[in-house]
């Protein structure tokens, strides 16, 4: 069975999120832990900026969970750059035992799922799971130079600058990880790399259906069902696909990519990237869950598993979605205000 129900329900001890200046103007601005003023993070290249960003996120999460780096048994993570360099270089700096993962933009759910399984089975006490993306490094790897005067099609999405990390632990907190589902790779024959939402929606549909069937719940049992980065079009397609299978996604459904930006910003279908679900989970969802405003949340991070080479060779885009079910248990408040690890305070 692709769903794993966790016997001991490990805790999501705390989480930390950082986003770029543009994301920091969006509707979720009050929830993020830190908003960058300068998206280069004073580094010479955007690849270096991305790994600095991830490092700050991981250190921030560990700090906010009141732990030390030495208390962490494993670091589960990945990113979108080739050979997941941001994560491995972060692991190098922090000297953490590293389990590198790649599910494109579904990496956050995959990391949390595996981290939870480790803690659940007593293989580790404290595990950090995190990922991030940087708009500028993703653009240069997947698309065009930043200064090229080209137009994007209306179905395009905007890779966010930002990310988040969660600490999964057997120390009690308000949030538990109940069950996780690893998705099948689903490809419905979409070849347009500017329409990732449509390519990933069938995978999200498959995973949500399997998860609900296996845990015996319906969509109305959740306060929020949250997909990673389907965007506006992808979300509409998902709702249609689910409806065909007699699952109704109502007002309790949302998508991280759609939540990230204001309508006024030129981001087309919304945000995307591994950092998208990572930052929304570790800001908005974390705060709502730990305050008990949400009782049960299903996070379904979605990823498109193509590369630039496969796309140029005419292959279609395989999609994947991993699901993590979180519930509020109300043990103790976890939301203490924490200053940033490097002594920088949250803006505003």
């Amino acid at each position, binding site marked *: 069975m692709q769903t794993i129900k966790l016997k001991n329900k490990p805790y999501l001890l705390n989480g930390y999120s950082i986003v770029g200046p543009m994301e920091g103007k969006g509707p979720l601005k009050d929830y993020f832990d830190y908003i960058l003023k300068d998206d280069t993070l004073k580094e*010479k*290249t955007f690849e270096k900026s991305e790994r600095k960003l991830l490092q700050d996120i991981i250190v921030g999460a560990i700090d906010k969970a009141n732990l030390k780096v030495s208390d962490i048994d494993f670091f589960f993570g990945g990113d979108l750059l080739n050979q997941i360099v941001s994560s491995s270089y972060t692991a190098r700096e922090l000297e953490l035992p590293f389990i590198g993962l790649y599910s494109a933009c579904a990496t956050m759910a995959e990391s949390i799922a595996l981290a939870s399984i480790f803690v659940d089975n007593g293989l580790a006490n404290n595990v950090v799971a995190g990922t991030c993306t940087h708009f500028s490094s993703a653009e*240069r790897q997947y698309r*065009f*130079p*930043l*200064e*090229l*005067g*080209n*137009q*994007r*099609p*209306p*179905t395009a999405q905007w890779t966010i600058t930002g990310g988040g990390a969660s600490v999964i632990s057997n120390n009690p907190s308000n949030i538990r990880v109940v069950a996780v589902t690893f998705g099948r790779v689903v*490809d*419905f*024959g*979409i070849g347009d790399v500017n*329409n990732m939402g*449509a390519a990933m929606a*069938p995978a999200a549909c498959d995973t949500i259906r399997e998860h609900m069937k296996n845990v015996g719940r319906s969509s109305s049992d959740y306060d929020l069902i949250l997909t990673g980065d389907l965007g506006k*079009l992808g979300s*509409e*397609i998902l709702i*249609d696909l689910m409806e065909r299978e007699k699952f109704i996604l109502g007002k309790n459904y949302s998508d991280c990519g759609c939540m990230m930006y204001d309508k006024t910003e*030129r981001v087309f279908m919304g945000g995307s990237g591994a950092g998208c679900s990572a930052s929304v989970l570790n800001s908005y969802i974390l705060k709502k869950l730990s305050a008990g405003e949400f009782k049960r949340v299903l996070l379904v991070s979605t990823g498109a598993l193509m590369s630039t080479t496969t796309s140029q060779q005419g292959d*279609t885009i395989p999609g994947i979605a991993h699901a993590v079910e979180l519930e509020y248990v109300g043990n103790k408040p976890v939301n203490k205000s924490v200053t940033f690890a490097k002594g920088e305070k949250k803006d505003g």
Partner: protein
Amino acid sequence: MDKQKRNANYNIYVESKVPKTKAWPSLFKAFLVGGLICALGQGFFDLYSHFFPNLAESEVTTCMLMSIIFLTCFLTGIGIYDVIGAWGGAGSVIPITGFSNSISSPAIEFKKEGIIYGICVKMFTIAGPVIVCGVVGSIVCGFVGLFI
């Protein structure tokens, strides 16, 4: 259900959901931006003809092109040309300014990988195909012209 049929149906369904680019506003913007660039070029041409009456027409044209190309590289470098391009579309791509932008933007972007592997290798990633098409096209046209 047969996967091929499922995928074909899905593609048709997605196609029906995809928002289309509106043709008239895009055409208008392209006309405006492209027209302004051409008018600017003509401005440079008239200016050089006026101040350097000794230059032949072909030399004035060369000076005008050089000015326009320099201006585009400059605007690309300070991060303005991509904004013009995103708004004006083909209007900013078709004139020589588009070509200049397509060479200067990867040169700036890949400078971090060094002069040889960065700038020199990547400079023509976007303009390269255009040059190839242009050269091949002119060879074909030349041959056709030879026999007509």
